[in-house]
């Protein structure tokens, strides 16, 4: 039903032509107002230099749904989107596949993600986890402890969501809670932790 907007065709077109094609598709499909994420079926840039603000905004919206957050940082979204594209040129297509699958399954409550994942292709699950991991860990890829190189890419440090749940109790390493020997007593929240 939907045209294949994957990279191999699109990159042969001129930038102006690509833009109009994307706008065209976006305009047409955006009419399905009932969709949770209508942009799931839009054409997407296939290389990082093509990425538009609109696409980052769409990625941000998907990220917010995947992480259960209402206001993720748009700058971090831009970096995460680009490095995920660098890591796999088919990322836009995979992201579209994920968004469509979430839409079809009506997945809005991420507490139900495991059940959703069980019914999906592994690529859909992997894409979701790649996006969630980038936000939580602040990098993409798999670090190699004893190598000068690996496939990781930096997204954010202090913005990594993994620090939010504990920010009142521990530190983001290299930063300080400000006082020598503060660590002698436990966090005030201990009784409810």
């Amino acid at each position: 039903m939907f045209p294949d907007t994957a990279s191999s065709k699109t990159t042969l077109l001129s930038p102006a032509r690509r833009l109009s094609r994307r706008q065209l598709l976006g305009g047409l499909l955006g009419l399905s107002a009932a969709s949770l994420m209508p942009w799931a079926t839009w054409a997407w840039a296939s290389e990082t230099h093509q990425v538009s603000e609109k696409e980052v905004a769409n990625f941000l919206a998907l990220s917010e749904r995947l992480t259960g957050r209402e206001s993720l940082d748009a700058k971090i979204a831009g970096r995460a989107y680009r490095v995920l594209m660098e890591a796999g040129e088919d990322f836009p297509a995979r992201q579209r596949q994920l968004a469509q699958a979430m839409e079809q399954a009506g997945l809005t409550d991420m507490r139900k993600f495991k059940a959703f994942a069980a019914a999906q292709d592994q690529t859909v699950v992997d894409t979701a986890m790649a996006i969630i991991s980038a936000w939580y860990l602040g990098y993409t890829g798999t670090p190699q402890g004893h190598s000068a190189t690996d496939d990781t890419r930096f997204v954010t440090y202090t913005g990594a969501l993994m620090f939010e749940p504990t920010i009142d109790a521990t530190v983001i390493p290299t930063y300080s809670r400000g006082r020598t020997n503060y660590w002698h007593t436990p966090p005030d929240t201990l009784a409810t932790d």
Partner: protein
Amino acid sequence: MATQYDADVIIIGSGALGSNAAFELARKGKSVIILESGERIPRWKILENFRTSSRKSNYNDPYPNAPWAPTSFDENYITNTGDFEFLPGMLRLVGGTTWHWAAATWRYTPNDMKLKSTYGVGRDWPIDYDELEPYYQRAEYALGVAGSDTDDQNGQGGDPWPPRSEPYPVPPEAPSYYYQRLKERIGAEGYHFIHEPNARTNQPWDGRPACSGNNNCMPVCPIGAMYSGDVHASHAEAAGARLLTDATAYKLEKGDGGKIAAVHCRSSNGDDTRLTAKYFIVAANGLETPKLLLISDVANSSDQVGRNLMDHTGMGLQFLADEPLWPGRGQIQEGGIFDWRDGDFRRQHAAIKHALTNKVPNEAVTRRLLDDLIVGPTLDERIRHDAARWVDISTTFEMLPHQSNTIRPSSTYKDALGIPTMTVNYSVDNYVKRAGEVAKKDFANFVRIMNGEVVEDDTGWQNRDHIMGTVIMGDTAENSVVDGDCRTWDHANLFLSTTGVIPASGVINPTLTGVALSIRVADTIAKEV
């Protein structure tokens, strides 16, 4: 006409050991040149490199990795031929690898240094504890070591041990809540928790601030509370030493009378320089030092250079305790369980140290949850729950020296300067494997006592980056590379300042001993030059 020299003493390597020797010699008025293969990098740049790194668990990553001065994680830096992948995290910059060492500064005990005569295994040191004690004291003051004057560091709950002539320069920091609770519960079953003496000062010391709990001792202390070798590289310069960076020593030149006449070094643009001195100290760490000696064909009449390689090869345990302990508040190491530090069991198996790791565990916690497809609000709840309960124990084992555990210049690979890289052959022996079984029983006890959920209790052998034995110290020229003064048997004016001289590894981090020996080397040379 008298011979002219470029310096009284040339020191190869600006790490903690070389820089302390340089400072001691320079302040006695000796002319000193320090050769450093890497560059001087300010702390703030290393800190920013860390914060923007995508591989923060890789402790070499924030540091320069130049083709002419690669870190040990560079491809082909070490080629392994043994059954263990030996690969310590070594750095190349002014200050050396103490930029990321966590600063554990234990002393050996008298028994550690007489392992053969006490327990019939391994080797003895040719010097005893009493000989080293005043130098331990000086090293502790140089580094601003915080320690307990009341602990029995043998882990038997006895009187303070080993003997000290003076108190620690800095009192111990307060124990974290995490440490206190583990000590209360695990200690209740008879395990002895010992504070780890450390060079992360908790009160101002020698221009360094007090630790503020930034929890990033490895790979870089952001505020310089933790000691690193650049402190004494700078002190040495202030005392008159000349520090040359981008100067990789690649050959020691033999001269008349069995002496070393010169060192040849090369810069990143290929310029070679020959420098002469009355005395030479090679302080290029326990791998690069034997490599330089072997390439230069010096100091090896015993055939012991590059043999007897010992790490404190280790294991790890992670589990979730049944109560919130909140690791990650304070310094990343605090101490551990020392019941297996010394005793008659050392006839049968290696000494064992269980060290508590107190790092903010969020990355490991989160990766584990993501692997289990836990996302959304549940993920946030579980991160807090699990991070509060994460217990990480890093266990190390005493090693014995073996002829077959070797470091050699590579016959295949060279670095950008044309200098061979290294080949290592390293295996773990039954003395350690037997201790591994004992450690696993302890692991099971710790998990049981804390009513824990095991995350990982079978890590296999792990690197600990404590390089010893490779230029071994001994009592005869036939069985060792250096004598008890760290002077090479073959060359009266060549000394080695490296933990590679250590002949009996014990189970404690060896750097403080290396600094103590280096200060002693400087004293010896200062009397002669």
